[in-house]
């Protein structure tokens, strides 16, 4: 007796709709925190709006290895029933075949031409990560999918110059994460405290050595303190 559960039209209560969206968001966040348990991408919803997420991405392989990118994801109010994938916008103008040089919005239309409620944000983010780390994959996509043709061409034609350019951007991106922003729930870093405090500095180095392979399963800044982060 399989049951049709598509009766969402019946729900008149607006609060309930909101609640459903919120629970879906919680679910997505929890999935992300377990799927990305070895670090690299971290997500925290903005303090004032649960549909706007702040993210940070530590690139660990590919041509942009060692870059650190802050980004924002905007969900629509009817999430997960939105028709297109969420909007992912980078805070730093990194050059990439799938990132618009003007808006810095990541184009995911190759992997996610549409969006529906069976899609999960962790796979969206995994696609983002995959694209960022695999230039070969990106430059070989159909030409209409490539947004930043210039960088794609450069990558294909002049590896040396591309590498230099990439190096420059990596350094810039790392410097940028120290610039404070307004939102309280954002990943920001205080250069002084990191560089001056021997202990923190050491522990960061220690952490970096071990972080990649053995972060605990429960590593999550989100869910063990769910109430706090959603306040």
């Amino acid at each position, binding site marked *: *007796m*399989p049951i049709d*559960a598509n009766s969402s039209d*019946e729900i008149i209560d*607006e*609060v309930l709709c909101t*609640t459903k969206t919120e629970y879906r968001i919680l679910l997505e966040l929890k999935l992300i925190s377990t*799927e990305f348990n070895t670090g690299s991408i971290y997500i925290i919803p903005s303090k*004032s*709006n649960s549909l706007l997420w702040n993210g940070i991405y530590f690139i660990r392989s590919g041509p942009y290895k060692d870059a650190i990118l802050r980004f924002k994801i905007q969900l629509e109010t009817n999430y997960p029933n939105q028709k297109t994938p969420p909007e992912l916008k980078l805070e730093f103008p990194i050059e990439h075949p799938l990132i618009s040089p003007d808006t810095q919005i990541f184009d995911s239309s190759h992997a996610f031409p549409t969006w529906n409620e069976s899609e999960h944000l962790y796979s969206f983010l995994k696609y983002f990560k995959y694209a960022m780390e695999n230039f070969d994959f990106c430059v070989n996509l159909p030409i209409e999918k490539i947004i930043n043709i210039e960088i794609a061409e450069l990558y294909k034609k002049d590896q040396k110059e591309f590498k230099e350019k990439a190096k420059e951007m990596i350094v810039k991106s790392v410097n940028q994460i120290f610039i404070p922003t307004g939102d309280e729930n954002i990943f920001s870093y205080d250069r002084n405290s990191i560089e001056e405090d021997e202990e923190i500095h050491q522990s960061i180095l220690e952490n970096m050595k071990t972080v990649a392979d053995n972060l605990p399963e429960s590593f999550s800044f989100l869910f063990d303190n769910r109430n706090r982060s959603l306040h």
Partner: protein
Amino acid sequence: MSWLRSSPLRQSFSRRTQDISNTGTDSKAVSDSFCKHWQQVSDIINRSENRQTQHDDVLAVVNHLDHMTTLLLVELHNCNKIALPNGQHPPAPCLEFMLSENLLDSLYEWSLSTGRYSNAVRLEQLKLYELLVSHSRHQLLVHEPFLRPLLKLLASCQNEIFPHDVGKRLVILLNQLCVVLMQNVHLLDLFFCSTQQHGLQMNGANQTNFIIFSLLIPYVHSDGSIGHQARDALLLCMSLSQKNSNIGTYIANHSSMSPVLVTGLCGLYSSLPNSIEVHSIDWFRITADDVNDMPELTLFMNSLEFCNAVVQVAHLLIRDQLLDFLYQGFLVPVLGPAVLQTNVESQIASMAYLDLILRSVTEPGLLKIMIKFLLDNEKFDGERILDVLIERINSPDSRLCMVTLTLFDTILGLHNEQLMTELILKYLIGARHIPIAQKHKINKIQAYAKTVDYLLDLAPEVMKNSNMILAEHKSLDYQQSSSASLPTHTNIVSRTIGANWNHYGLHNTGESLYSNYHAYLYDAHQKIKRTKYSCDQWTDNYFYKSPHKQRQNAKMPNEQLVQIVRNFLSEFNLDTITTTLMSDEPSNINNISNSSKQLDMDSLQSIGESSGYESMKYRPDEDEEHQINSGNDSGNQISTNINSNITIVKNIEPWRISRFKDSQLFDLEITEDIFTQGTVSLGPFLTSIWSKLQTFTSNSLYVNLHLTGLISHIALYPLPLVHSILLRPDIPTTSDIPSFYQVLKILKQQIDAELPMTEDSLELIDIGRTFLIDREFKLINARKIALEALKASNASQLSTSQTNTQTSQLQTYDPFKRQDDKRKSSSNSIMSIFRRTSTTTASSNSNNNNAGVIGANQGIASLRDHQPNSLELQTSSINDSTGLGANSYINERHRDLAIAAIILDEFLKELSSISQEMSIVLLNENFKNI
């Protein structure tokens, strides 16, 4: 005894002190006066050697002793004020005089000759000792002139029956001694094995004896403050037994402690009323206030709490002995037959008592024997108490039904693995109630989120309409009150998250929790958290597990197995799959099923859905074990089992691969279970609950409140197997009874048919809603008033009662500790607001060992009596307000239906909030321990 004499304290007494100039004059006068009084007492004592003690003599001695006591008090008071820098004690001439002249001993010897006045003299002596023990900073117990007469006096008290005042003094003194001993455990031996060492004449001269303890035992069941103090003191002795195993052995082997406690408990239980006079129709359990209102019950509960406390603090030997006695002497011969009685009134009473006992017992040891009692197969003519209780869920008597439902609520609240297994899990564990092809869904937590829509859709139509009207009103109000700007969608999101999330969505306390979805979510969050915390301690997480692990050795013919695998895979229309099975070795048979288990349903389905360029094939030659790597750039998902000859290679986009999906269950049932589908029992407990739910529209409101509460309570357990029948409409069941959703659907149809969407129905709903909200507020207010009264009485009690200082010594003794947690929870819950009786359910539980509460309860009791709680009263008011004939059956039926519709609607909200919360809490939970 040499250590006694070499005590540094003794030196301070024998040494003449020089540095006393500051208090010199005062203390000189005091000590002179003290000596004078003693001189006169001494004269009387000497005189009495020659003649019978006269009334006047005793009177004079008592008089003088009174003065001496006062003087001693003054002196001790002065001494205690001064702190000498070198840690020495200031001089106390009166005390020294008393000790050096062996005054206490003379007094005792004389008291033996006082004949019929002996009790009066004894009373004076007890007072004197008590004063000295409690007020002196000196360790008087190490001084023989003090200790010896004290022990003589105590010994003389054995086997005597005293008038109340003497008994009271004795208990106070013993209590004081215990306090001192707690602080100075090394002094314990002075009171222990005292017979020989002190050469005293006692009954059974050579027997080991801990005199303080044996003197206290007769008072253990006493009423009032004397009983309390005796029990306090005994508990101190029990705690001592943990520090000194001699005491433990003595109490266990030589004292009558355990039998006395248990027989007392039996006696007190027997004196409880055989039927409980119920004032209100919604009565369902004995509250702390009821306990205080019924003197018999107060006594019984005191005694039970005491047992609980003994189990908590006592030496292992004592604890085990007491538990054994309790089981063999109270539970089996007394409580069991009481529960098994046939008379409904007695059943109600005994179930309520059982519920009270289960709620009050906090010690794991005691709980364990309670559970053993519920599950015992042998002691009650082959009947199990638990089974008998289950039968009573469907009793035609609504009071018995309510008490039973409440009792099961208490049982579920214990979060005990064994009980849950017996009640529910035992019947679900192989998931035989679910068709094979559906079993893989059980652990899929994400599907929980969809339950919400389904459940809420089951609300009666009239409720949907009524809610819509209500929502419109509310949004109108909202717009009017904040006319400045219409809230945008984003605003609403942050509003619910920021401001309301943790507060039931209530800003002002005057609001009802009725139909407040946020409140349900919050409630579910808290309760699930708590339940999960308990269940995390269980031996298993009871996620659905493939039965193959348990049937490794089962052999099946190869061909049959292969066929089953084929059939199974073909169910999912996976035409692209080509199967090659290496099945020539018999030992590989089970591996085949193991590896098919590794096939992941989600991946399979996504293959089916997506374009189809993925392929799936077996690579028979692959022999190593591969781990799935989510970052695998090649996009090949390789899943292999150790020693298995099957490898599945799937070509999937790398970003679609989840870390966890590889270990999800893909189940294949290869046993005779296939043929038993459709006749699977969910066990008597769930069957009874379902059948009670089927009569929902004709049950009384209060039965329905408890019934729905119990079902929600079951759903709160973080057990996907249990949810498979409660929170998973997407999983069909093949049990021998209608599924939960079928029952709910029938209820909806029934209500929709009998209460069609008309103006009249909407009005009835409105009236019913008002009634429920009124009831909620009445209960809240009753609680408020009661709590205030309680607070006031506690404050006055604190200022008057001395015993509080003594009870504070016993920090570990905290009866109703578990109840305390419950109290908080009950004040947080929503549906339970309806469920609560008018009494202050658990609010005074923690104070319930204080005698003074009784006074405050007069107020509560009268409040309860005045509460217009009975449905009759409400009925008439409902009928009056609708202007319909009061006796019309149809109207009554409609009114009941309206209330049932409201409760059903709320119940569905409660359940759906639980499933929403569960979808987050349990997500990936089954991978935690892998």
